[in-house]
């Protein structure tokens, strides 16, 4: 295997794994950003220049900010009750949701006919990419935009949940 790709993949997976295991949410978010940057490096290695820069612009620049703001806005106050301990029901739910998403992804990957040998990379210009995104794949672009908006709205709803941070003697 290509050593550059190997380094990128190791950094990507290691930062994601460490991010999941950290208790400190801000550090986890920053490590997740490193992982996203690794994904951009992978795109760059694969020759998809435009996608790599878009990944950095959207994920490292914008989505990381949304995540960090959400983390800081929903930080538990010292007076909040401690989070409930993990129950079997929650563990079961997490496992079910995780395996469902994993199964879906595996099915999609296995169901896609991938070329067995790397052929000649298509010489795509930015103009052609723009035409594709605005024409054939316009729906996918719109769905991605709506998804980001919904994530932002969710963060606001979580942060503005009624009753949070309202100490008894507050006005």
């Amino acid at each position: 295997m290509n050593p550059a790709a190997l380094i990128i993949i190791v950094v990507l997976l290691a930062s994601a794994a460490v991010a999941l295991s950290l208790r400190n949410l801000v550090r986890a978010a920053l490590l997740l950003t490193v992982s996203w940057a690794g994904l951009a490096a992978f795109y760059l290695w694969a020759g998809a220049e435009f996608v790599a820069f878009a990944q950095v612009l959207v994920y490292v620049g914008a989505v990381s900010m949304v995540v960090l703001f959400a983390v800081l806005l929903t930080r538990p106050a010292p007076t909040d009750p401690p989070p409930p301990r993990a129950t079997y029901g929650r563990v079961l739910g997490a496992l079910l949701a995780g395996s469902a998403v994993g199964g879906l992804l595996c099915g999609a990957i296995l169901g896609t006919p991938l070329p067995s040998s790397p052929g000649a990379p298509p010489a795509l210009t930015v103009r052609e990419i723009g035409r594709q995104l605005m024409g054939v794949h316009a729906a996918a672009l719109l769905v991605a935009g709506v998804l980001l908006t919904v994530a932002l709205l969710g963060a606001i709803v979580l942060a503005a949940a009624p009753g949070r941070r309202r100490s008894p003697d507050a006005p």
Partner: protein
Amino acid sequence: MSHLGSSFFLAVTSAPPAADHPLERLPLQLRDLLTGFLPAELRWFASAILAIVVILAVFGLLFALLTLAERKLLGRVQNRPGPNRTGWFGLLQPFADAIKMLTKEDVVPREADQVLHFLAPVALLAFSVLTFAVIPYGRNLVPLDLDAAVLYFFAAGAGTELAVFMAGWASRNKYSLLAAMRALAQLISYELPLLLSFVPVVMLSGALSTTGIVAAQAGWKWGLVPHWHVCTPWGFAGFAIFMIAALAESNRSPFDLPEAESELIAGHLTEYSGFKYALFFMAEYFGMIALSSMAITLFLGGWQAPCAFLEFIPSYAWFGAKLLVLLGGFIWVRATLPRLRIDQLTRLAWKFLVPLALINLGTAAFWRLTADWTGPLDAGRWLLAGALVVGPFLLLGRGLSAGVTPRTYRYAPS
């Protein structure tokens, strides 16, 4: 080197085509001279290293001299001499400052997140240096010619927000954290008009590569008026919006709220000292230089000469002259305008610059669709596009200043 000198004289007298001008070829010849002895497989690597070294040396020196020029100009505006003790005319002041910063004690709060506290200035500087890679400094001086260069530039710039957050959070100081959030609100607000104002350029020139955008602005009307984007109605509006947003993105006055030294205890830099503090300032100036270079590339014709008969001056000299003019403008603005409040700052971004940038997209689309209008229709095209730029500016400006202007000033009764 003697044959170079003689060929230079020949060039001045016989004026060959601009691309073959010996002064234009000089950087390439210098590069070949320095990397020519290497085997061919190593040569690309050596030229990349050479480009990095030259960029760091040139812009490092420019940063040092810019701090001096800024202090001198501010002093001139404020009727005082400025630094004038270190070296002739104060010329050695930046180097004395560098030695002072290097030898100062580096204080890190005990409770701080040591790793992130160290990484924040490094990341900020690294991201701002990355942006220098895609700027075409001259006809033959493009360090990295990417197909999506403009996207690369703004992607690298997006990382600076992360570094600001890291600095504020890792200091474990509530003033730092609050200031970092305030800085982020500003950076995110002004990134929108910054990004929206360059979209018309990409639309009209049909290229995302910086060399393509510069090539689209080549040529002159009657040999005098350049085809730069700033000479069109939409380009002028885009340039103005871009420069205002660039002022805010590089934390320059009048948008220097993130580190307002005199009233907001230097914001996210509160817990930084010594060379780390200097690194933040270096990154700020690098960001300012990079955004000015991008403005030149997008709107001011890059390295193109303003008139046909001035083309004998090499392209990189034109780029440098434009860069110095823009940087001087940055300093002038700092000397002239008072600092905005945070609510005025966000209002200006969301209620004024973003709508204007969106309308400017429409103006650019109109300009593109009417490219084949000639004669009296051409005059109408200019009038319509001009009205599309000026009208919303006046209306929105009136709405923004409603209830604030006109101000009346009265002297205190004696």
